[in-house]
């Protein structure tokens, strides 16, 4: 290996840590307030524009939401200061086990393997969904 290449690579690695540290220090991520039902519906409508959502459940953390569309579960979950959406069979979500207060939805997708929910200990799983408003107001219908 050429010594210059090794030097440049090492210097680049140092620069990466400095720049990442600086971005953490300056704290300039986008504001990402906890999801509300309306915000979750709006995001789901954007991610699944042709799908009619029958109800929504919000994770108490405000960082995830689940909606039902016929036999599919639509999942929205926070990654960094953004959100990611995936869907899976409702039955797969419903059968996900609760362990240490967490429920993990597995998508079988290398790019987004899982989403983690934190339902209240006494709450049922699958979660009870808040019904959608009348069809005239429904998002994404």
């Amino acid at each position, binding site marked *: 290996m050429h010594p210059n290449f090794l030097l440049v690579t090492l210097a680049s690695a140092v620069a990466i840590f400095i720049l990442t540290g600086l971005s*953490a220090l300056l704290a300039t991520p986008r504001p990402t307030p906890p999801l509300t039902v309306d915000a979750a519906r709006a995001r789901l409508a954007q991610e699944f524009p042709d799908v009619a959502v029958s109800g929504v459940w919000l994770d108490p953390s405000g960082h995830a939401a689940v909606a039902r569309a016929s036999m599919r579960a639509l999942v929205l979950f926070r990654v960094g*200061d953004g959100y990611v959406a995936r869907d899976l069979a409702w039955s797969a979500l419903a059968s996900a086990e609760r362990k240490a207060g967490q429920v993990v939805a597995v998508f079988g997708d290398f790019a987004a393997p899982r989403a983690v929910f934190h339902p209240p200990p006494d709450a049922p799983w699958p979660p009870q969904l808040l019904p959608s408003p009348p069809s005239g107001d429904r998002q994404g219908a």
Partner: protein
Amino acid sequence: MEKAPFDVVTLATPAFILLIILEMVLGKLDPKRASYEPRDTFASLTMGLGSQVFGALTAGVVAATTVAVWRHRLFDISMTSAVAWIAIFFLEDLIYYWFHRLSHERRFWWASHVNHHSSQHYNLSTALRQTWTGGVNGSWCLWLLLAFLGFPPAMIFVEKGVSLVYQFWIHTEAIKRLPAPFEAVMNTPSHHRVHHARNPRYLDRNFAGILIIWDRLFGTFEPERDDEPCDYGVVKNLGGFNVFRIALHEWEAMARDLLRAKSLSEVWNYVFGPPGWSSDGSRKTSKDLKVAWQSRLNSPAGSAGSSP
């Protein structure tokens, strides 16, 4: 054969770092101008470093092939000719346009390029979120045309560096619009924001490297609209910041599809079809997404928001 007089990218690297710091500070002062998420920043910069390392592994093959082709060149072109530099500026940029378009419209090359679009942020660190697998997908062969014409390999190397450096500064939200004559001819932050957006209107648009004229010429230009802000990322955003997932996820998905393929036609389409193609139609290509979006716009509900 002449050696490249300098490596444009190496020379520009200190400026890259300083400009990223400047943009971060600007984002602190005015959050509308720039945003950085530390894990996203780390992933982007590490992808850039990985690209250099993996690129070095195939650089010898690329250089040797380029020299071999140049030995069978059509014309003798001198590196000291001003006309030659002007010619390579336009020709290299034209090749870049088609390379970039191919990288979006065919899955085999999209699998390498998708990582550049995988951030939900659009800042100068995103510019460095480069591929790890570009050396093995053969897209560099497009530049062999320049060697065959007679442009010395060193000249091609310099011009490719110029293009890469130019494209760094356009990855920013800090600059809104530049003077109209500049926006008409050059690729700008505004044009390239559109390229990084996943709004159906903006998908697969503005492939330009330096000159936006190619998009205008080949019908792929889309201006940025104030009433439709860019939503950055890919159609199905990634669920984390693991650089190996960022670099390899589309290759993994392609391999998984190939294992399920039932015919040669399916094999072909899963590899060389448009990204999003599936045998059962369960996934959507950019074209499908645009048609569905247009259909929603034309429906009485018009749920897609802004007008076409």
